[in-house]
């Protein structure tokens, strides 16, 4: 770890001003930034601490339904907020399956989707061929250990997956990341396209630009019939092998609309658009449901060691559909 200077923002304007300067890393919860600094993923000359910036945390109901979550809201505070628990169980569950209780007390909802991939080649303490660590150096995982890597949207330049649990739930909820910048207007970035696929840029992680801060996350109408399922070889404190976020809108036993996002299967939370389209109008538990879900996997492509993840993800979706049906 190299020496760095430290500055603390006392207002949102100051945070944006400090963030806009080059060679800067933003400190919110710090749980992931510390990893970057220790491993050498980032070596900023300056760290700007925004964790005490006023007015950027807490959960509030939006007029006309919906919720706004301040970016600095601690994960556990977001998950246990009554509005999130009751109206957005998929998000509450996803957060509570993240990390450990201690980390969730520190990490923020705005910082969590910014965590970088967990690919062991990317996280190596010494350089290995990885286009995200050293652009142009290749992808050692492509023909290496890739049991937990992508089944959707990968290219030969990067096969890593984005592991954030909340990000998968937010993608299923069609949430929006609300950002601000010092030198330009803020943006409203849809959660489903917040992360960058390797076909767009194998070196990138998110669409966030330097100096751009997430200030809040907005979710539209409540999604009481929703659920999150996280699969992993141990019961807690582990990234997903596959996770599934499902939001259902039912008319009796008929699916009016289903929204499905998979976590840890691609470089971004993966919406199963084709499955969602085919599920519309289907009766719950009917034989067409399986076929509709299977259609969502038509474009899945396995790597050398992870074909099982396709079946696992498919089964996870079917199970989560059932969980969401029973929710509310």
């Amino acid at each position, binding site marked *: *770890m*190299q*020496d760095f200077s430290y500055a603390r923002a006392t207002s949102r304007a100051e945070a944006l001003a400090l963030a806009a300067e080059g060679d800067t890393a933003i400190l919110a919860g710090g749980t992931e930034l510390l*990893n970057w600094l220790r491993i*050498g993923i980032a070596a900023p000359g300056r760290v700007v601490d925004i964790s005490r910036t006023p007015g950027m945390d807490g959960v509030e109901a939006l007029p006309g339904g919906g919720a706004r979550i301040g970016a600095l809201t601690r994960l556990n505070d977001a998950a246990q907020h009554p509005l999130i628990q009751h109206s957005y169980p998929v998000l509450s569950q996803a957060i509570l399956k993240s990390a450990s209780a201690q980390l969730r007390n520190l990490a923020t909802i705005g910082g969590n989707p910014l965590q970088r991939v*967990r690919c*062991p*080649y990317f*996280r*190596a*303490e*010494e*350089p*290995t061929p990885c286009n995200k660590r050293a652009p142009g150096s290749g992808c*050692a995982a492509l*023909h*290496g*250990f890739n*049991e937990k890597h992508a089944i959707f949207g990968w290219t030969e330049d990067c096969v890593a997956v984005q592991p954030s649990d909340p990000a998968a739930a937010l993608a299923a909820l069609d949430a929006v990341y609300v950002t601000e910048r010092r030198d330009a207007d803020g943006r409203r970035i849809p959660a489903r396209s917040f992360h960058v696929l390797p076909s767009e840029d194998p070196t990138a992680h998110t669409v966030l630009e330097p100096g751009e801060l997430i200030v809040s996350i907005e979710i539209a109408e409540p999604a009481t019939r929703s659920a999150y*399922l996280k*699969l992993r*070889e*141990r*019961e*807690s*404190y*582990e990234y997903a*092998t596959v996770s599934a976020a499902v939001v259902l809108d039912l008319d009796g036993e008929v699916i009016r609309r289903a929204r499905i996002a998979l976590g840890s299967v691609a470089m971004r939370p993966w919406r199963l658009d084709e499955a969602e389209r085919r599920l519309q109008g289907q009766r719950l538990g009917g034989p067409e449901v399986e076929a509709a879900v299977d259609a969502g996997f038509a474009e899945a492509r396995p790597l050398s060691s*992870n074909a*099982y993840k396709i*079946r*696992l993800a498919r*089964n*996870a979706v*079917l*199970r989560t559909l059932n969980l969401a049906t029973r929710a509310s």
Partner: protein
Amino acid sequence: MKTSGDPITRLDGPAKTTGAARYAGDQALPGQLHAVLVPSTIPAGRVTGIDARAALATPGVVRVLTASDMTRVHPDLDKITCPPLATRFLPMQGDQVLYEGQPVAIVLAERLEPAEAAAAAIRVCYQRDAFTPPETAPAEPPDPAKGDYSKSSAVTFQKGDAAAAIAAAPVRLAARYTQPSRHANPMEPSAILAAWEGDRLTVYDAVQHLPAVQGALAAVFGLGADKVRVVSPHTGGGFGAKAFIWPHEILTAMAARVVGRPVKLALSRQHMHAMVGPQPQMTHDLELGARPDGRLAGLTHATANITSVTDDYVEFGAIPSRAFYACDNITTDHRVRRGHVTLPTFMRSPWDGPGSWALGSAMDELARRLGVDPLDLRLANHADTDPESGQPWSSKKLREAYEEGARRFGWRERPRGGTRDGHWRIGCGMADCSQGQARFHSTARVRLAAEGAAVVESSFCDIGTGPATVFAQVAAEALGLDPRQVTVRSGDTDLPYSGPTYGSGTTLSTGAAVQRAAERVRGRLAALAGWAPEETTMREGRITRANESRTIQEVLGAAGLPELSSDGAFDLPGGAPVDMGEAGAPARTFGAIFVEVGVDPELGLLRLRRAVGAYSAGRILNPRTARSQMIGGIIWGWGMAAMEASHYEPKLGRWLSKDLAGVAIPVNADIPPEIEVAFVEEFDARSGPLGAKGIGELGATGVAAAVANAVYDAIGIRVRDLPITPDKLLAA
């Protein structure tokens, strides 16, 4: 008063939970420098140049040491065997690189942070050589010229004609079982602080055997052992990773000598993975032949484990096949696959841990083929005597353990395999647990003060398993005291010599020395009182004969003595430092593990629902600490079964993940409260005067096999390659 055998709580618990206990990394000396090792980034080749200019320009950096700065080891080191030396190959004695992560330079700085920054700024130039990934290297017989590990047990063993017996047997099984490399990952990574005063060296070190470090470091510098002091009051878990002397310990002592200042090194988790060996990846090829009644007619077991190119570490994983079951025809063999990798080492549980995984799985497969209950198959093959030597065991109450375990688990009434509980399919499995019993020469001193307080002194180290509590109980029992009146001083080579804290041998060895010393003190106290020792009893600070009773203070006061001090020893036949039981009475611990698992075959999930372990392990000196040990072993075994794997990356020639984020180990949420532990009543008089045996490794044996057997019971999938991960469980 009876104190050994009581379930008292850990006497060192408060110090550890409040942070008062000082571990090696907590130690500090005036003028100390912080060391950070610079690891090789290639697996094979030569260092052709090191550019340390940027590192040396870092404020706070004092020196950068390379091979040319280091002293050469003294020829005395050739006399130290492996083990206790972990490896013959010492980095930074030349320019050769033989594994990724091998230290090639040392940065010394006034603080840790500049040392780390400077280490990252060092540019090393290499001449790369082709390297050999170990797992795909040919399996070859170990070479005795490549270190002493292959002399630790019989590499090959043959009794009868196993091949012919198997060929003629009506029921046969041939299968290969594999397991990945696994790093020990103790909570405390290895750390050492080395300081010289003239030609005297003191090291504060995280170790499992202090005198071994003392002897090795003395040899490195050609000193008498009396010139080296090793201090290790607490070790934060070892599991084998701190059992032997690894290069970083030698290099730190050398660095301190070169710069003339104390040097402190704490390995990062990443460096720990690269510089301290794991349990090796290995394959087991088993063939079993059985008679229709289930009795084994023949058994062959051949293993191959990975090792480095410098030393042949042999993981004697076929030992269970010549120790667990009665059989007239047995052949075992051990081979190694040499590659450019950190030298593997002993890890809980060495030898029997890997072997019981393979053999315990094969026996379950055989039971299925025979159509008999797996427990009945074991009963039919119970080894009344040691199958290898034909000699009687020092003690064995396995039949009782089977019965107790089966009763507590409800084995005979278990649910049918595949029974549903929601999405979960339930399966039950069992396997044998057994571990060879090491004994170590040990000594101890017991001092009894007039006010009735006693002190136990011995150089053993407490790696977190509780010997300091148990030895206080042993001394207290002999002297009629409360264990809290006994202070235990350990972890310092200035104290009487103790054997190591590994091989499950500390309690029976050092404990016996403590008992003898305490009884000697008691005998002298009786003599001072003018009584024959055997006519006296001691209780609550008094010594009593018939109707006469005097306080310790009265007896010592009358004699004008402030205290009584005696030494005791646990000596092995022939003055040996270590053996595997008394001649003619091979020693082992035994038991059985029963588990119930849930498998969700649609989601590839495997979860432990409950477990019962029942053991025949001699006399249990403290049921509370013993139970904790066994539960820890079962959890250790669950990790082996369900998730743990350290992958060697064959294209890069390095360990892929060197941290706890990339290598899963069990967490609390994985472990159900329903883990039951039972010990059968036993007193092993042949193994030592305490009647005790060791349990540190026993609990981790057999578990992986029991889990794999339970998985088969649940869903009919036989997993022969550990760990049992979702990809192997998904229903087709």
